[in-house]
């Protein structure tokens, strides 16, 4: 039962992600290189970690989305396997069209690193099954391109089908997130046949140990294995 953390060229949160799975969640965790064609035979869950894969060349996640391993990840997701895309991982899932929409540059066009309050409209579902519906939690964000955008139809569908997993608490008068302009304040969404895919911009692996400020993140990492 292995958690596969996919490494793309210049992913930089891969080691952090693996550290938390091994030391905090206490799960077996392996790196899988972007050019592999298959996931490990005993794979239990797949995580696409944060970073600036390919230097965000063209668009964040655009290059990584077309690496050989993504075919296997797509198959795994379509088969109901748990997949979590964190930050750059979320961007890659959107570019690979495993999730709808796109992450655009923050509306203020600056990188923002901050610990933000979030709500869990997806609490009780998918990878958020260990959270209450509409629980308020705190997670760190660190991104330049975190403004979620989807066309009106997709946004309506996400809302109607309860696929919005996480939202930023602080929104402006247009209902966009104040911190980066995300539509409907979306910080994370579900996908896949059984909400088995979760893409989110905040970093749960950075909020899984008390000494780092809190443990609101660890429950969603643990849920990938149960």
């Amino acid at each position, binding site marked *: 039962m292995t958690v596969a953390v996919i490494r793309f*060229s210049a992913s930089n*949160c891969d080691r952090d992600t693996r550290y938390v799975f091994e030391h905090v969640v206490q799960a077996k965790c392996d790196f899988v290189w972007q050019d592999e064609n298959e996931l490990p035979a005993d794979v239990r869950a797949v995580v696409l970690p944060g*970073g*600036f894969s390919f*230097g965000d060349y063209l668009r964040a996640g655009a290059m990584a989305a077309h690496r050989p391993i993504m075919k296997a990840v797509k198959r795994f997701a379509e088969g109901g396997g748990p997949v979590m895309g964190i930050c750059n991982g979320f961007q890659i899932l959107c570019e690979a069209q495993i999730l709808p929409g796109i992450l655009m540059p923050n509306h203020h066009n600056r*990188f923002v*690193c901050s610990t933000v309050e979030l709500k869990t409209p997806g609490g009780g579902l998918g990878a958020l099954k260990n959270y209450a519906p509409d629980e308020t939690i705190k997670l*760190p964000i660190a991104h330049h391109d975190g403004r979620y955008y989807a066309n009106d139809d997709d946004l309506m569908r996400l809302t109607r089908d309860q696929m919005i997993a996480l939202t930023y608490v602080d929104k402006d008068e247009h209902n966009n997130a104040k911190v980066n302009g995300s539509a409907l304040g979306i910080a994370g969404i579900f996908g896949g046949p059984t909400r088995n895919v979760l893409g989110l911009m905040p970093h749960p692996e*950075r909020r899984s140990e008390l000494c*780092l400020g809190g443990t609101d993140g660890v429950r969603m990492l643990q849920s990938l294995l149960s």
Partner: protein
Amino acid sequence: MSSLSPSEVQSVTKLLGRHPSKLEEGLFTAMWSEHCSYKSSKIHLQKLPKASPRVLVGPGENAGAVDIGDGLCVVFKVESHNHPSFIEPFQGAATGVGGILRDIFTMGARPFATMNLLRFGSPSHPKTPWLVDGAIRGLSGYGNCFGVANVVTDVAFDSCYDANILVNAFAIGVCKHSELQSGTAKGLGNAVVYVGAKTGRDGIHGATMASESFDDASHERRPTVQVGDPFKEKLLLDACLECFEKKLVVGIQDMGAAGLTSSSYEMASRGNSGLNLHLDKVPLRDAGMQPYEIMLSESQERMLLVAKQENVVAIKEIFERYDLDAAVIGEVANERLVNLYWRGDCICSLDPLWLTDEAPVLRRPSARPEIASEARAMTKQQAPEGFTQYDRHIGLGTLVAGDESDAALVRIPGTNKAIGLSIGCDEQLCAANPFEGARRGFARQVLQLACIGTEPIGATDCLNFGSPEDPCVMWSFERAIEGLCEAAAAFKVPIISGNVSFYNQTNEKAIYPTPTVGLVGLREGYAHFATRDLKRDDDVQVFVGVKHHDLACVHTLAQWLIPLVRSGEVDTARVTEKGDDLLGVIIAAPKTKVAAISKNVPGEFLIMEQ
């Protein structure tokens, strides 16, 4: 572009026994520049204390290394990238942090934190907003993409920096003692391998540009500013660390100032070896490049390594997997000469020591200024706007960053250890009295480390001054060094690496003497530390201080504070000066606790309710 001074040309002619060729002149100009040779500062830098039982690598290598116990060490250094950042702030700052990161991982250590000290001109100067915006985007853009937490930024504004901004970048990494690498070429017949990005025309004579004062034509120097690619640098890090892990490398050095020239001649000098280099084998971005350009290009994200012939295939495979160039460009030779070949012809043959050890050592005249400058009040930002542009959390190490506490505390995941990090300078006092300013600045940083419960174990310095050709600047430089010497000796902190940046002046106007210090602390366990913000409404604040001239008292104050912080008794503290005399901390705690703490303090402490 400046060239060698007449007396330097004479020295070169004497060494060669003839006039130098254009290529040789280029090589000597770069290597004997102030930036590369430290010719005006060498005799003074030697006075700085550099030893302690913990020091594993002192000055002379690409960065210093200090033991932190359990077979681990930290590797750190601070460097300047002032001149390029003024000309082109985004790329200048970006390549500044790129360069310092390479200095750390070339030593075998994985970088886990950076800090920076930035000095800009007056907020009302028309260029200041452009410089601030560019520098912060450059530093954060590069560091975030590479993937290292920037935990402290010390930003201040003063008109003395109007035309000479300062960008000092610090980086620290960790590794096992056994993983430390060296920038040495040795082993007759070993391969010399160029790895990383291709060589282009950017940055040619960058080192020389950093060794001159600016004048009105400075904007014409834009082509001398290097261009950085943090994506390439992350791949370079991954590839190098994999090579180190597999023990494939004999020696390695990053190509920084003066690019292929400095790395090859310095590695050969350290190893007392010779090298044969075939320049036509160097991977180029522009096929038309000539030997002169190839040798002096400062294209980024490149390393030069030496390896046994039998390991070359494995090295190439690793770099190919990371999509980086890896080309054998030469071999270690038996006679101590660096021979440059171009399409089969030997076009240059020099003893590497001529460019390194034989560089001039100048005893510049120094003269006390008649009127000591009056330090103006500077605009300093405690939690500067722009700090949120830096990723402070990557690496899962940051317990507290510089926006919440005077020094940052970063744990080493997988161990019980945490590292304290502080960067700063007391240039206001330095302007009036460089000796006292350097000394008090260091003392202040020791107290900052105490606020987060750490004892200092090592320091690195970046000495930013005006032109060394000005005797008054030299006088300030010497006094600042004396202040650092006294402080480092008093706190028993070795200064294990550093950098000198002279020529921070435009026409006749020089900056304040700005001797930046990066101070590193250590503690086992990290449950409690103090931050600046008040925790409880009914807390009482009290200043506990000593006379800053008496470093033994400052040391006692730090030793008094550390256990109180570590136990959690003091959770709110910040360092401050009071008047001209006093240096100490303002702590906040419930009234009864403050009373208890204040009861048994040493006699030298002054306690003042706030």
